[in-house]
């Protein structure tokens, strides 16, 4: 179902999802992330929780809900990782906020735009992580690298298909 609402004098579409779809998708992304990493180190390039946060942020187009969703997913990711609690929470919270804000202004339904947006959000996410790790943990963390570039491209490509699949969870 698509809801027409006014947002800063513009008519934007806010998508609603089936009950529990958001929560299930997020938990599933976290579990799958941990599960896949167990099988191969190549899956470490994937950032499924980030993709889920970006998708729901772009779709729901509410900065507050995007912020909380991103923070919640990030904290859970911290919880199952060996990182201080809050590291991913901050990064994904900011991404959820920005994605919701951007989703209210741009066309986020087209696959190309989704590819570009995910590519950008991936690097923003990495920059926030690097800054936080550098400042708080006093540990060097690259802002950009070839591996990060490859990971961003892979995640962007995966996101195109993942987002199309998640579109099915929307209320008609």
């Amino acid at each position, binding site marked *: 179902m698509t809801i027409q609402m006014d947002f800063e004098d513009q008519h934007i579409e806010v998508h609603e999802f089936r009950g529990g779809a958001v929560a299930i998708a997020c938990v599933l992304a976290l579990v799958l992330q941990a599960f896949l990493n167990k099988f191969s180190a190549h899956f470490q390039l994937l950032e499924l929780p980030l993709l889920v946060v970006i998708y729901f942020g772009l779709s729901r187009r509410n*900065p*507050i809900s995007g*912020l*909380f969703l991103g*923070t919640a997913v990030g*904290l859970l990711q911290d919880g199952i990782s060996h990182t*201080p*609690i*809050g*590291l991913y*929470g*901050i990064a994904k*919270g*900011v991404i959820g*906020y920005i994605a919701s*804000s951007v989703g209210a202004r741009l066309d986020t339904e087209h696959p190309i735009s989704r590819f570009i947006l995910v590519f950008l959000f991936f690097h923003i996410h990495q920059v926030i992580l690097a800054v*936080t790790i550098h400042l*708080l*943990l*006093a540990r060097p963390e690259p802002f950009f690298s070839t591996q990060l570039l490859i990971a961003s491209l892979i995640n962007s490509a995966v996101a195109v298909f993942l987002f199309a699949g998640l579109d099915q969870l929307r209320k008609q």
Partner: protein
Amino acid sequence: MDVPARHRPLVLLVAVILAQLLLLAFQIKRGQDVRLIRVWAAAVLTPPQHAGIFVISKIEGAWSGYIDLWHAQRYNQQLADEVGKLRLKNQQLEGQAAEAGRLAKLLGFRQANLNVPMVAAEVIGASADSNSETIFINRGEHDGLRRNMAVITPDGVVGKIFEVFSHTAQVLLITDKESGVGALLANTRTHGVVNGTGDPLLRMDYVTTGEKLFVGEEILTSGEDRIFPKDLPVGTVASAKPGYPFQTIRAKPAAHLDRLEEVLVLLTEESLNPRQTEAPAASATPEKTSSNSKPRGNAAKAPIASRAPKNAAAPASHAKTPPPPAKKNPAVVKPTGTNPPGAPR
């Protein structure tokens, strides 16, 4: 706090990020195993504490400095007052010490001459006339003083009583132009007359050019003037120039005439023992006058009148034998203190 709806998501974002930063700070530990939240807390709180301590210490320092300065000023004033009092007291003590020294000297002189009647007197004034050299003493007719009595100090001759009043007397100093003392050179026993010039220095007349004498040579009283006893110090030779027939001799008075405070008035013309004044307690037996007649002075000094003409007429006083009677000596001083007629002045 009322936040506009447009900014509410941004404020919320900041709040969530801050909350997670705090959460991180609780978990992360820095060097020395200190939690980051403690490091941050210290970083946030210690600068104001430092600033507060700095300001308070400065205020305390300024206040204590002001108080110290105030105390120092008072203390300085007290010290200045005390220094002034001590200076005054010191001057008094110095004056008393000097007076004690002078009195001790007088006492020593007096003890060395117990058989000689004398009166100690205090100088109470000086002449108001710049052309005359006189002083006033606090002894007079009631104390037995008479005209022409000798006035001395342990250092030497001062002058003679010129006028006598009931309780005071005027003394004519030997430096006065009208003053004259029968004298002799201590080394050669050459007689002459010491006259005042109105200046600090005296003049010794009637010493022939052929006589050898030395700068610093002592001049003693000869006793021929019937005023001063024999062998009292009159002065020392300051300079001598050959002349015809007599030398021009300048002498420095033995007594400190410029700072007289106590003097002795001799009530007799008997001979004294002036050399006993330095150690009165050590000497019970006064030195005889004859011992003072021996030549004194520095033999190493070159004679200053040795180039005098040999044909200069030597007076009778030139003889080294005891001085002749006053009538035969042209340098005899009249008892009144005036110079003899025809004497060169």
